[in-house]
């Protein structure tokens, strides 16, 4: 028998060959570039333009997919014999069973990008993922049609038969049965009209609206959260430990999926409801209880939480704040270290307040952990812990903060001083007092200002020794002012002679103190504020040195005047 004559294409194959080349190029561009990339845009434009010469020849383009070649009628137009790689479009479609692809006019405008996306998905997909036949089915293209052989189903049409064994019944018996039924019906004359009123079964507008709402609800509902609630419900109602063990595995898996999907409110839901389950479920074994507790602990563990925070820090679009807040609400005290670490290094201005809020909540509920972290060997953690102690005015942190004041790390000492000042209790002031003599200027200033604000009289002796000593003369103006303000606030009348001498007195060879020292003495006298101090100030009211005169005038106007 002779082979059938090969089918001749109705026109030149060149435009079709070119088109398939353009599809391959565009598919590559789709894979490599973002849609706003000029190379990508050019590839798509070229592909769209490539259809024009084809449509000049035919109304539709039906391509036969071979193992490694694509044919138009019987002419090969793409592919490479023997090439069984995903780069070869023929093989890509053939291996999943697609045997024919037909493109219609309109494809190039409406569906080409989705089609390229599908090719990309097929190329990248693992064997477990959907095959091209399913992808084409789901894509529901209007301008692409396809034929396929089903490689998944074996055999043809199986035998179908009603399997029940029913003994045959004779014609007479059937006749008797039907006649009896008809007679009976006629005799009773009873017909249930409702069964015959078809209009009863048409949906009215209200019912259609109801279905609309139900369908919307079906697709709006958070499937993962519902599944989580189902798993926890099953856990609570089923006492079999083996089942519960399996459920816990599934809950753990679900939580990982939720985290991967950045579904943070879902994770929070699982953790929150997990705690409810611990309280409510009966007969929970110690092991299962521990596993439920560990759900939250695992997320709070440094490795897991660091990963989460890193991804949040790097993501260009942070998930909704309320979702994150819900999640952070579920963190455990063990998360504090990691949260403090990230507070110091996060680059995200949106993440920081959330972390701060979480840290605040965790620290407030776990003071001992907070105090422990003030002594952390990691300076970043200690700093954040100390700051948090200040915000929370944590009395229990005073001792740890006092120890921190002796640390060699200046930053730590500064933060400790600030924090103790914020706490402001007598204990905190006592711990802070020795910081007046700290080697760091900021620590000293912070300490002195705290003493001033709190009018902490036990510090007078230290302040007096500074004010009367040499060290203060070497300090900058801000520090000088801080010390003199502090001294003035605490010394009372007893300090006036010394301050008077500084402001108005003349020393050896009639030399006066320098302007800054005299101005500071004036400020201190203003703080003292007694008639004797005011008199002292008035003596200098006509001072020629403008710095001194201004300070005196401000002091005379009252406490705080120098600040305006």
């Amino acid at each position, binding site marked *: 028998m002779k082979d059938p004559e090969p089918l001749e294409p109705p026109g030149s194959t060149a435009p079709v060959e070119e088109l398939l080349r353009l599809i391959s190029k565009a598919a590559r561009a789709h894979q490599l570039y973002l849609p706003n990339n000029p190379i990508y845009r050019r590839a798509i434009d070229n592909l769209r333009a490539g259809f024009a010469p084809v449509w000049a020849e035919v109304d539709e383009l039906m391509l036969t997919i071979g193992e490694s070649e694509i044919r138009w009628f019987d002419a090969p137009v793409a592919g490479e014999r023997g090439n069984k790689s995903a780069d070869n479009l023929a093989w890509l479609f053939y291996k999943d069973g697609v045997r*024919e692809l037909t493109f219609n006019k309109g494809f190039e405008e409406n569906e080409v990008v989705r089609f390229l996306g599908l090719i990309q998905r097929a190329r990248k997909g693992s064997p*477990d993922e959907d095959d091209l036949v399913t992808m084409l089915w789901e894509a529901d293209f209007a301008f692409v049609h396809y034929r396929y052989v089903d490689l*998944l189903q074996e055999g043809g049409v199986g035998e179908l*038969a009603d399997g029940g064994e029913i003994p045959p*019944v004779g014609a007479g018996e059937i*006749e008797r049965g039907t006649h009896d*039924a008809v007679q009976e019906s006629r005799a009773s004359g009873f017909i249930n009209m409702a069964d*015959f009123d078809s209009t009863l079964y048409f949906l009215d507008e209200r019912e259609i609206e109801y279905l609309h709402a139900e369908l919307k609800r079906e697709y709006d509902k958070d499937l993962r959260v*519902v599944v989580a609630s189902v798993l926890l419900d099953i856990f609570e109602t089923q006492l079999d430990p083996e089942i519960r063990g399996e459920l816990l595995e599934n809950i753990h898996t679900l939580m990982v999926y939720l985290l991967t999907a950045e579904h943070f409110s879902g994770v929070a839901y699982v953790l929150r409801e997990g705690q409810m389950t611990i309280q409510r479920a009966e007969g929970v074994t110690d092991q299962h209880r521990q596993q439920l507790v560990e759900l939250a602990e695992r997320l709070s563990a440094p490795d897991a939480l660091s990963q989460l925070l890193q991804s949040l820090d790097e993501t260009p679009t942070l998930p909704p704040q309320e979702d994150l807040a819900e999640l952070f609400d579920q963190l455990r005290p063990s998360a504090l270290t990691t949260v403090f670490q990230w507070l110091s290094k996060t680059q995200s201005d949106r993440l920081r307040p959330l972390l701060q809020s979480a840290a605040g909540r965790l620290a407030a509920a776990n003071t001992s952990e907070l105090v422990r972290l003030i002594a952390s060997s990691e300076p970043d953690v200690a700093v954040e812990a100390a700051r948090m102690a200040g915000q929370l005015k944590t009395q229990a942190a005073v001792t740890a903060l006092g120890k921190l004041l002796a640390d060699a790390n200046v930053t730590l000492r500064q933060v400790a001083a600030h924090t103790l000042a914020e706490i402001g209790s007598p204990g905190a002031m006592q711990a802070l007092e020795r910081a007046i003599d700290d080697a760091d200027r900021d620590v000293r200033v912070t300490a002195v200002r705290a003493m001033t604000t709190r009018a902490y009289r036990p510090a007078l002796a230290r302040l007096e020794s500074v004010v009367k000593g040499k060290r203060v003369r070497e300090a900058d103006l801000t520090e000088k002012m801080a010390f003199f303000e502090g001294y003035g606030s605490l010394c009372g009348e007893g300090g006036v002679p010394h301050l008077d001498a500084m402001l108005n007195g003349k020393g050896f060879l009639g030399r006066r103190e320098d302007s800054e020292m005299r101005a500071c003495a004036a400020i201190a006298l203003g703080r003292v504020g007694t008639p004797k101090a005011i008199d002292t100030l008035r003596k200098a009211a006509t001072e020629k040195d403008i710095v001194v005169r201004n300070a005196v005038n401000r002091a005379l106007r009252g406490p705080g005047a120098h600040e305006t």
Partner: protein
Amino acid sequence: MSARNSAETAARDLSLPGATGEGAGDAHVRRAGRQLIFSAYGALRAVKLYPVENAAVQKALDEVTNQSKELIASEQELELRMSGEFIFVNQTRLRLDLDNFASFSHLLALFRASGIGRVTIAPNVGPKDWLVFLSVLQSPTADDPADRLEQLMAKLQSAGVVAFTFAPPTQTGDGDREKAKERAKRTYTQGVAATRELMASVRIGGSPNIKKIKRVVQGIVDQILSEETSLIGLTTIRDYDEYTFTHSVNVCIFAVALGKRLGLGKLQLYDLGMSALFHDIGKSRVPQSILNKTGGLNDEEWRMIAAHPWLGVLAMFQLRGAQEVPYRGMIVAYEHHMKVDLSGYPRQIREHPLGLFSKIVAVADGFDAATSRRAYQTVPFTPAQVMLEMRDNRHRGMDPVIVKAFINLTGVYPVGTLVVLDTFELGIVHAVNPIPDMLSRPMVRVVSDAQGNVTHPGTLFDLADRNENGDYLRTIIKTENPERYGIRVGDYFV
């Protein structure tokens, strides 16, 4: 045959056509076409409810006239074409959804009942033309189905209406019908085989081939969208030994068909079908000795049977692979025995309302289970009994709107019901009547004559047919248990 036609036919032969026509044509035609269908539906109702002089009738007729003229003005022509479940305006397929399915299906059914496959509307069409056409369209006729279109055209002609030109539907020859049946059988058997494999795989803790299941559900959705009768007919097969598998496939078929009736889109039907096919997967973790036990079940055994919804959730976690987790399926499996008031089983602790898909599957499951013979239900209920029970017994806890839509889908006498006719004949309900008002007068295959002689394959009759006096030729007297008459219903659908 054009190249395009041959491609479509070939694609159909391979069982999975790509979508045809969706998206073709511009948005204007789609929008104006939908409006025309709404107007025609409104006019149909007005003409049926009120006298011609009523202002509502006149307004409705003016509206449908204006809509048609507007379309003709913009498109230069106006043709309505019926194809399967779809209506095309010129070359554009109108999108079917929840907003419009009632008007679409009503109009489709009337056109189908009158033998209209295509109607072309002339530019000079007026309100009077529409009045006559719509009145004739919904007037009862005693004509033989094959002659109905001719009679309709004659009536219009005698009334002087020439603005409509009709053509019958594209002929579906016996060969095509056989092919459709073959496709349905293939889909069904593949569904049963894939479900069997799935259950077996889950039972031994393996990883079943979900691709196969997906392909089966895609086939069912395609089949239901193009021609549902054959597939629904196959749900009457009651293979006792394969109950668990055939039941899953049947529930999937009923659910998808019901979803279509409710106006769900193709991908939503796919989601629904997947969930429905998996709804009983939990039974793969119930000992077979209990599933197959023929005697009564003790409390512990019932407890194990009643565990299958939540066992289904666990079983589906076992299915997870590189692909998506079947969350929706898990929820449906878990909820399909719950009642709308959240009673039933399993007991919810964290309350959430039942999902629409769960309610649909609950109805499909309840119907198929009650009408099937299985290990612990040796005498099944008749489909009509079950339907009435679902409708009337609120304690069953099914959503009344879904039940109503289900009855609308299957008719008052569902496919496969054995009925006694007032002619002393026995018949098996073959399909719901395409005329919307004739839900209680289905298409029936008469399988025994008045003398009790059983015939195979029997003869198909439309119970809406009347004699010259306008009386119905055949009327259902009652439904019967097929076993009483030694009839295996499924044999008539294979």
